[in-house]
């Protein structure tokens, strides 16, 4: 199902619980639950193999059903692009479904279909990934196909000509005709001055219009190489057999030198940034983002290790369910919001934002909603969160970890993304203990340190009547 595979904004993925990292200092019942759960869950390890050509192979066994998911992750996405070629990684992803040196265009899809696989690919700021979900006895066929397109894709100008039109249609569908998406796109471009996170994954339309087949070909040659990729397999498989299979199909490729990636660390923000968008729409909306350090910055020692976990819990105190503060105080309570969300985006390659978005309730101004949200932020700084709230978030994290294991696709996606952004797949064992260790004081500390005006960008959407023609070329 496409729905369950998309990692859109609202998708929350949580982590595997580990028996190895229990934190004895905790007195919450969350801790007891954690221990009890571990008795019932034998931890299944992730097997890691490194091929000589630099390809990383991660395998996790899950024998609940006779199926498997195979994913190939490349360390390339929008954040590797520069101005003028935005959207190139994604356009290349589209071209990866065309022909190879030994396969005509369309043959790839016929093969995948014949083995009963579901397949697709996705591009984000930090990665491009391809996958098949299939009966586990068909794994080898899928692996052969993925190996083939790692190095052998053919770039036919005629195919590109059609496919770039498809990408433009995707952009119209995904962004241009959706007020919320347009707002988000412009918001990001204002929140970040020089970080590559300012650009949309789909690319600016003007860049798509000028993109050529050679751009895609060069990009492919540059980044699609075994030493820039991770192969992830989760399901009813034998890890060592998967390793052998990977050697058989990917082993012949040589390692290739990779371009140096400039860090492009976002320059320090010197004051609040406000933008107003006027778009044909029916509903006003608000989007706010505070610059926050990502988990990777803690790993690199730039910020204390606990800070990203505290930010994660903080976001869940505001919006981690129907009993969280936004639902309780803004949607119910004051009734100023028809909807309000918050999320900490700290699991990428670069520092990102803690995002708050909302739609004012009927008859309430966007200004009033903004003030109410800012009051909630102030409360986080002036008062410690309650034991009950903290306990609730921790209980959800523990349960969520079990629930998410119901899907092998989610598990594979977690492993692949963590490895690809540089956190390493082993981070999966650190997440739950990291969250369980967060204290009320730490939440207050990160609120005071990061949720400040100088880190803030605010976008407000003011609806124009839908009868007015949108500006188009």
């Amino acid at each position, binding site marked *: 199902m496409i729905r369950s595979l998309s990692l859109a904004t609202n998708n929350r993925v949580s982590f595997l619980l580990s028996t190895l990292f229990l934190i004895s200092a905790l007195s919450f019942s969350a801790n007891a639950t954690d221990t009890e759960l571990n008795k019932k869950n034998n931890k299944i390890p992730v097997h890691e193999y490194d091929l000589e050509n630099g390809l990383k192979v991660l395998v996790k066994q899950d024998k609940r*059903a006779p199926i498997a998911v195979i994913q190939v992750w490349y360390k390339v996405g929008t954040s590797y692009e520069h101005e003028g070629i935005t959207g190139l990684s994604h356009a290349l992803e589209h071209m990866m479904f065309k022909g190879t040196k030994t396969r005509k265009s369309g043959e790839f899809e016929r093969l995948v279909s014949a083995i009963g696989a579901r397949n697709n690919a996705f591009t984000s700021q930090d990665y491009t990934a391809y996958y098949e979900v299939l009966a586990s006895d068909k794994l080898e066929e899928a692996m052969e196909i993925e190996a083939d397109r790692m190095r052998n894709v053919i770039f036919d100008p005629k195919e590109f000509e059609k496919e770039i039109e*498809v990408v433009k249609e995707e952009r119209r569908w995904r962004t241009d005709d959706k007020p919320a998406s347009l707002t988000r796109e412009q918001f990001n471009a204002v929140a970040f001055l020089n970080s590559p996170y300012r650009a949309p994954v789909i690319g600016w339309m003007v860049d798509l219009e000028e993109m050529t087949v050679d751009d895609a070909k060069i990009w492919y040659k540059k980044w699609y190489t075994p030493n820039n990729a991770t192969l992830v397999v989760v399901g009813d498989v034998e890890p060592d057999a998967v390793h052998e299979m990977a050697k058989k199909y990917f082993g012949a490729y040589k390692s290739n030198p990779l371009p140096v990636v400039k860090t492009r660390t976002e320059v320090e923000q010197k004051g609040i940034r406000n933008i107003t968008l006027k778009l044909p729409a029916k509903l006003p909306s608000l989007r706010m983002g505070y610059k926050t350090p990502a988990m990777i910055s803690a790993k690199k020692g730039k910020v204390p290790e606990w800070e990203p976990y505290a930010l994660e819990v903080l976001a869940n105190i505001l919006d981690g369910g129907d009993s969280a503060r936004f639902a309780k105080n803004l949607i119910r309570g004051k009734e100023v919001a028809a909807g309000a969300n918050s999320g900490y985006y700290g699991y990428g390659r670069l520092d990102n934002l803690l995002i708050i978005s909302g739609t004012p309730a009927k008859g309430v101004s966007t200004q009033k909603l903004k003030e109410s949200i800012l009051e909630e932020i102030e409360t986080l700084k002036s008062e410690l969160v309650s034991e009950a709230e903290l306990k609730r978030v921790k209980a959800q994290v523990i349960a969520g970890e079990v629930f998410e294991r119901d899907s092998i696709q989610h598990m594979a996606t977690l492993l692949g993304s963590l490895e690809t952004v540089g956190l390493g797949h082993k981070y999966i064992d650190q997440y739950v203990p990291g969250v369980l260790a967060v204290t009320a004081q730490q939440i207050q500390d990160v609120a005071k340190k990061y949720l400040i005006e100088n880190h803030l960008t605010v976008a407000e959407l003011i609806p124009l009547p839908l009868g007015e023609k949108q500006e188009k070329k």
Partner: protein
Amino acid sequence: MIKLNQQQSNSLLKRPFAFSIAILFLLFSQISQAGPKIENWITSSGLRVYFVNVPELPMLDLRLSFAAGSAYDGDKLGISGMTTSMLNKGAAGLNADQIAENFESVGANFSANSGRDAISISLRTLTLDEQIQKGMENWLKVIEKPEFPEADFKRLKKQALIGLQAEKQNPGSIASKVFYKNLYPNHPYGEPQNGTEESINAMTTDDLKAFFKRYFVNKNGQIALVGSIDRKQAEAIAEKVSKALTSNDRGEGEKAAPIPEVKPLTEAKTIRVPFPSSQAHIFIGQPGNKRGDKDYYSLYLGNHELGGSGFTSRLMKEIRVKRGLSYSVYSYFIPMKEFGPFMLGLQTKLSQTDEAIKVAREVLETFQKEGPSEDNLKASKLNITGGFPLRTASNDDIVGYIDVIGMYDLPLDYLDTFTNIINDTSREQVIDAFKRRVDLDKLLTVIVGGEADVAKSDSANGEKKESTN
């Protein structure tokens, strides 16, 4: 809870809109081979139970469903959704805050959904003693004694009105609404699922209470239980649920009256709705098939090649791959209690609207005339049967399937026989079914997008403005 990246693009999107339960049922319908072992019984108060033991993960999925979707709204449009949404806003002396806290303090997820045929109330919880006890206790209160508090209802109405506004700024939502309205004139399937401004404003908590009492009853419902509990525990839970449903003098209740029959369209119709978008959103279709339909398998198998299989489908090849006209293009049957839609959908920039419609129609006409080739039919069968194990790989998948089996009175071996029936379906049967069931002279076409001066309707019943509903 980890939020990965904020934005993502896919190379393929088969189905761009969430049609809530109706569409989920469609996905669940794509099945075959030996399925999970389903146990089935009826509680002492008349509630049908479907249970699958899945021991590996310490969790339980529970879904209580009633034949109480928007098709049962009557003249109070939107009441099914509003009733379902109000359940957790106050029950057995607890307010909305307390109900939410009780679930979330043990990490349980509560959800309630409504579709055209059915509504469902779900719980996902860990099966550790403390979690399952507290989660179940709270959940039982919600289905036993919902209070429909006035203040919460007032707020929910405002939110519903905002929801209606949101539909009006989304060309896809508008197209879907206009499509259903014209596909099902004078039939409950054609009414807006979320109601209208007038119907929402006029609704009272007494209306909700009456709807609840009539439809949320043992004999009109079923419960699906999937997870690491044994038969004995499942029986105990089902009895408790069933007993809770007898409160408020509901007793065992009665089955809902049948949904009226759907009549076929009498003429071809094209409706254009102006909208300031860069793309036109296009739906083409007519009433399709229903659950338990004798042509179900032939139509499903045929549609796989027509527009149900993504890249290998004819529509995708002709519209997207060869011509670059649309990012997403598909066709499907949504089998429902009565004839659900057969629909073909795509989006394209305004200047390509006519071309895209022309190609899509040609693909449909050719397919109906020629049917699938033997080779393609074989390929479709391989894909459907080869992918069978994927369909019931997670607890979440299984609960969805058995919910459908119960709601539509499908045989318990529905999953087990699917593959064989698909394999036994011939090319002739597919061609015959498409000839009988798809009438090319009576297709409904809805186009949303473009300016008012060029957007003419060829039907007197056409929508004049985007804001009709």
